[in-house]
């Protein structure tokens, strides 16, 4: 009986983890740095955003569409939220559910941003939104609000 209970609990927890995205919070840039330097055949899109940033919210559907369009190709999208404050996780989670976000979301809560902005890219001044696109042969930071067409053309031309 006890075994069954734990089995049930395990299935419940596992199913829960799959159905709604758990959003990790990293208080140190080092924990997300590896996401910016993966040496694989995949092309990576890393978007820096926040729920309160209007141009970030505006470009979110473009990243969603990109995710759909290339879901069978070697493209990996991560959305790094810079939301802060006591309700940050809740805010990001609600946003993710409301907008049906398909890509991985993490929250970076490392307010000493001068220490890490240049590690993302020396081309970035720190203004939101910003997007890094890279693979083994290409690396570029875009400090701008994207529309889908621009995003699609860059990814399409770089994907392997």
């Amino acid at each position, binding site marked *: 009986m006890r075994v069954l209970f734990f089995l049930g609990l395990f299935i419940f927890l596992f199913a829960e983890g799959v159905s709604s995205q758990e959003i990790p919070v990293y208080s140190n840039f080092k924990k997300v740095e590896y996401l910016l330097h993966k040496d694989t055949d995949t092309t990576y899109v890393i978007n*820096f955003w*926040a729920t*309160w*940033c*209007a*141009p970030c919210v505006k470009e979110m559907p473009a990243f969603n569409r990109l995710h759909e369009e290339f879901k069978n190709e070697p493209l990996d999208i991560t959305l790094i939220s*810079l939301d*802060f*404050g006591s309700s940050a996780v809740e805010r990001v989670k609600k946003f993710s559910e409301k907008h049906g976000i398909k890509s991985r979301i993490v929250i970076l809560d490392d*307010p*000493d*941003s*001068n*220490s890490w*902005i*240049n590690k993302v890219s020396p081309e*970035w*001044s*720190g*203004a*939101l*939104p910003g997007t890094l696109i890279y693979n083994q042969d290409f690396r570029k930071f875009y*400090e*701008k*609000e994207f529309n889908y067409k621009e995003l699609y053309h860059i990814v399409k031309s770089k994907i392997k």
Partner: protein
Amino acid sequence: MKKIVLSAVLVLISVMVFSQGYEIGDKAKNFRLKNVDDSYVSLSDYEDEKGVIVVFTCNHCPYAQAWEDRIIGLDKKFDKKGYPVVAIQPNDTEMYPDDSFENMKKRAEEKNYTFPYLIDKKQEVYKEFGATRTPHLFILENQEGEFIVQYIGAPDDNYKDADAVEKHYAANAVNSLLNGNKPEPAKTKAIGCSIKDKSK
């Protein structure tokens, strides 16, 4: 004719490439902008000061809000030492009604700003400086009437928690200048809200 067109294009390209704003050591051009008390404020009004702390900031941005009290603190600390704060709101107010001139007035009154809060209505001054986000600081040193850019960047190293600040970049920069030294670091970065401009 072709030559004229070609050189015009080249000039345009070089303007686009090189007008990326001020670097350390550049001389800041004079500006004249409307303040929340409806008077006009110019950089040249500060020629009797040792320098000016120019802050591009706004009402709506959470990073600007998080740093707001510390900006007020900078003016309280350094105005009497010859480095007053001058705040400039660079956003398009149609895109961001929170940053309208009326709302700037309200904000300055609510928070008892001890410094001018100017509107960059034509959105030319922020481009001249090369500001990209709010808040974005430029500390200018008055060298015989010329305002030389000596520090560009963040107020300090923690956008969300004043009590957790370890490096007071802006205050240290002003103190260095007051002691006759160059700020170190002279440039820092921080997360902020992009400046909202319809033309971009």
